[in-house]
């Protein structure tokens, strides 16, 4: 005879289902952590430029770049994707530095413009190296093309 679907049954499905799928999520996360070293370009972080890249990430964060741009598709949608900007700028960190350094302080009339942050050359290098590091993460071929 079929059991009636009671509140207790519903409660047990909730606790059992949540526990099972959370444990499955943890297991998948554990497996992911094992695979990331082959994908996340961590070699760059432990390499010679590691401290520069780390500094670049801090500058990226402390100027809220994510408030306008996306990075690997996450962030704001007001300004271009930067996960592949290194390739878009011809595999050149100098081109990235030159663009950031040349933004007009008062903006461009009627148009969106990136603020002038008055970065030192060392800071510009750090940001550009950070973006180069990001561009070499294995993102399953995203974005679809160079335009981001």
């Amino acid at each position, binding site marked *: 005879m079929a059991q009636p679907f009671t509140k207790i049954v519903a409660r047990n499905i909730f606790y059992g289902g949540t526990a099972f799928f959370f444990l499955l999520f943890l297991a998948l996360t554990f497996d992911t952590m094992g695979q*990331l070293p082959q994908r996340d370009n961590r070699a760059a*972080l432990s390499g010679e430029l590691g401290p520069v890249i780390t500094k670049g990430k801090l500058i990226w964060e402390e100027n809220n770049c994510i408030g306008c741009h996306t990075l*690997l598709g996450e962030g704001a949608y007001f300004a271009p994707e930067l996960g592949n900007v290194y390739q878009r700028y011809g595999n050149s960190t100098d081109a990235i530095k030159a663009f950031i350094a040349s933004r007009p302080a008062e903006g461009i009339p009627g148009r*969106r413009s990136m603020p002038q942050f008055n970065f030192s050359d060392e800071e510009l290098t750090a940001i550009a190296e950070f973006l180069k590091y990001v561009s070499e993460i294995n*993102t399953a071929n995203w974005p679809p093309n160079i335009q981001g």
Partner: protein
Amino acid sequence: MQYKSQAVAKPYFIAAIALFVAQVLFGLIMGLQYVVGDFLFPEIPFNVARMVHTNALIVWLLMAFMGASYYLVPEEAETELYSPGLATLMFWVFLVAAALTVAGYLLLSYSTLADVTMNKLLPTMGREFLEQPTITKIGIVIVALAFLFNIGMTILRGRKTVINLVLLMGLTGLAVFFLFAFYNPDNLVLDKYFWWWVVHLWVEGVWELILGAILAFVLVKTTGVDREVIEKWLYVIIAMTLITGIIGTGHHYYWIGAPEYWQWWGSIFSAMEPIPFFMMTVFAFNIVNKRRRDHPNKPAMLWALGTAVMAFLGAGVWGFLHTLSPVNYYTHGSQITAAHGHMAFYGAYVMINITIISYAMPLLRGRNAANPLKSQVWEMWSFWLMTIAMVFITLFLTGAGILQAYLQRMGENPQPFMVVQEQISLFYWLREIAGVIFLIGLVVYIASFFVGQNDPEAATES
């Protein structure tokens, strides 16, 4: 109001509405900057307006969750709140911290704010939605712990209802997963992977428990339907929420460096995420149809049903639209994401909070059950104005997003980001107009608290 300590909810609700106004005003600024790029530049650059827009949203939703908890937990537990004094103290701590943080965003450059708050000691700033200075984040943890203690002690010494337990689980999850905001490794992939443990496991996980509990409470109170029935539904809905939503986190792991099997896990499980929202819609209408009384507070019923429908559309349908990995490949980080974000947050979390405010505020202001008729009519107008405006905001952003994905990522000659943005500016103008309608709706909503206040209270019709 059955317990006098429920009154501590009132300032939480008022502050929440004030922050809602700030959120919408800064949203309009951003919307205009999309088409008039130099608007308020460089005084309020886009990223600052966006921080205020999103952070005000998060804080006001948290404030309203807290107000809702302080209101409903004593009534469910059938006892006074453990410490009303602590609740009031924490209100002021939270409000001052939020005000100082917003002032910091607006008055200082973000890098200066990072310096004066010593971000370098424990860098947590500059990540989407977690832009708050580290010290603010620590403040949020302290407020959350004091809040949980207060709510937990109240539940512990009173009647233990399913609504209270589900709410407490949701709130505990909220506090626990927020701790990942303090984990910010140099490795960007790890950073992003665990950033989602705050963001996704909040809004597509534990927050839905809070949403379900508040909705169930309001339906118990307004329909008089047997609690057993409502509680069973609540368990089924939150079971489906977490069964689908936890692994559903995988839909954020497609393109950030995680293994490619997440495209399967994420697509399959997040494709099922609309199910609990659909069940919630069926549940709400079912319960209202079975009602044993006609509660005189019509707007509260309207908001409750509206929540169920709009959460299903915004979170369920618009989420499904771009959650399958082959689709998401083209739509990831486009205006489609923005469209979904707007309707999902409005439908699920804005509306559930207005539901409980709509139900509780007349009682907190000393009425027997409901506002006078005139006030109710204004409030129902605000419901339609804001809800329809949000539908159009979502549709216009969806139009913009489809064109963006096609022109920039799918067509024969993919065009640069800014070139595409100019081509789709018509949709941004229309979105901004819909945003103005939304603001008008919000003004009407606030006015509803003041109109007809000397009229007699609306009575039950039947």
